[in-house]
């Protein structure tokens, strides 16, 4: 159940998408997300979806897996849809029952918002699915470097992100284990009202936090005993090098982005 979460999950591969420079991938993702907010027709969304599907196919990502990644936001999507359906006013009344009323504009904005959220998550998950966490943080560190002049510790931030991403699966596993242990003592995580459920989480969260702190301590020790020190003097094993394909792909993405935003 918890293992459905696809954040930080990376499917190794050798497609052109996988081999792209992480910096370019991050920039393209940012660009596409921005464009997503400029799109104001369903034709635009459709073209965007087409683009997503084409990328998925080129990267040879299992579509099923990407769709499964949408599961955690299912609740948010449904909520958004319903709020817009019932609350956004305008246009003809389509359906009415007592105080509940669905109007044309509600249907339109509802589906509009939902498409936006889904595409947003699909596009960003392409980034995380095709880029290893290490590459990803390397890319982010590089992109943040100019801000170091204003006192932003880019290297440390990148290291923190790497570690955070690395520990998501570990902590999920741990959470599942503790959950089972408490269930074996009769804990009930699945029934009751919201307050009861929140209370039921205490026996899960306390041990989880304690173990997270313990792990952090141990990790810090392990890093220090291998002479880790942050800062700008660190060199890297794999230098990021911009290839010509990266530049072409970025230009292609920019052209597509502008084109889609015209619809």
């Amino acid at each position, binding site marked *: 159940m918890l*293992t459905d979460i696809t954040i930080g999950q990376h499917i190794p591969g050798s497609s052109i998408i996988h081999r792209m420079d992480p910096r370019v991938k991050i920039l393209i993702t940012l660009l596409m997300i921005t464009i997503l907010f400029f799109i104001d027709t369903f034709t635009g969304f459709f073209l965007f979806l087409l683009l997503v599907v084409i990328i998925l196919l080129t990267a040879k990502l*299992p579509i099923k*897996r990407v769709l499964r990644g949408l599961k955690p936001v299912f609740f948010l999507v449904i909520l958004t849809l319903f709020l817009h359906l019932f609350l956004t006013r305008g246009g003809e009344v389509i359906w009415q029952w007592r105080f509940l009323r669905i109007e044309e504009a509600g249907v339109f904005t509802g589906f509009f918002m939902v498409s936006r959220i889904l595409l947003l998550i699909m596009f960003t998950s392409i980034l995380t699915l095709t880029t290893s966490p290490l590459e990803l943080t390397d890319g982010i560190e590089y992109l943040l470097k100019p801000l170091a002049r204003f006192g932003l510790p880019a290297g440390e931030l990148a290291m923190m992100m790497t570690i955070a991403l690395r520990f998501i699966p570990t902590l999920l596993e*741990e959470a599942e*284990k*503790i959950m*089972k*242990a*408490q*269930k*074996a*003592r*009769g*804990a*009930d995580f699945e029934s009751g009202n919201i307050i009861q459920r929140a209370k039921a989480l*205490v*026996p899960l969260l*306390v*041990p989880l936090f*304690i*173990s997270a702190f313990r792990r952090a301590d141990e990790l810090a020790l392990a890093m220090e005993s291998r002479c880790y020190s942050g800062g700008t003097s660190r060199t890297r094993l794999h230098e990021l090098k911009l290839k010509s394909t990266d530049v072409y792909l970025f230009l292609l993405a920019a052209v597509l982005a502008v084109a889609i935003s015209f619809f």
Partner: protein
Amino acid sequence: MLIELENIRHIYQMDDPVVALDGVDLEIERGEFIGLIGHTGSGKSTLVQLLNGLLKPSEGRILFEGRDINSQEVELKEIRRRVGLVFQYPEHQLFEETVAKDIAFGPKNAGLADEEIDKRVREALDLVGLDYESFKDRSPFNLSGGQQRRIAIAGVLALKPEVLILDEPMAGLDPAGRRKLLELLRHLHRNLEMTIILISHRMEEIARLASRVVVMDRGKIILEGRPAEVFNERERLKDIDLDLPVVTDILKKLKEKGLKVRTDVFALEDARNEILTALEKQSQFRESRPC
């Protein structure tokens, strides 16, 4: 029959599904002490999680007193109260402010009255050998690892389970802690008549405590029987990289060298006596021979 497993298969659904159990049949009788051995990934932990309904089998049925525990009419809560499960490193599940509160978590979930809960906390602490008065108000997080482990086990014992399952309860304990825990298990089995299932990598412990040993490999039960029978199959155990108990190993080697010793004793003391008597007999035999 207390617990019956009928042709259990369990598959973890992941991107590439893993078959954890592949056709397991097992019957467990009341009062047995079962030692479950096998390599990491052989399916032991999956098996024990099926027994109290934490996992549901992909195929097959699990019967507790003849009732299918995954059917509609059986309350899983009841099964979990009667089949206690102590996970690996159980001290990682402690969460309450005080020892007493943590141990009371299980009984409280079972809906017992306050006096009964209090009584059970006392009993459970007493069982694991910790003094109620001096420990009840302490924070479980300020105790030593061994003490935390015992508190966590007390938390399961407070449910007064009929079946107690322990997944490598000795891992990471010092020799004294291990000995105390072994004594506790023996006491629970002999004097309180609990049915016990113990997963362990230490063959000595299994050999000395278990009334029946079950050996698993790659999701299947490949060997079962009394400790003496199972540890007689040295070659088969070797095939799956499992060792014999050290004592058995020595006795077997002595026997191969021609000393007439029994190989079905597992306690160090007994083995010593066995070897001494065998040596004595041998020397008597030699002395009586005319030179």
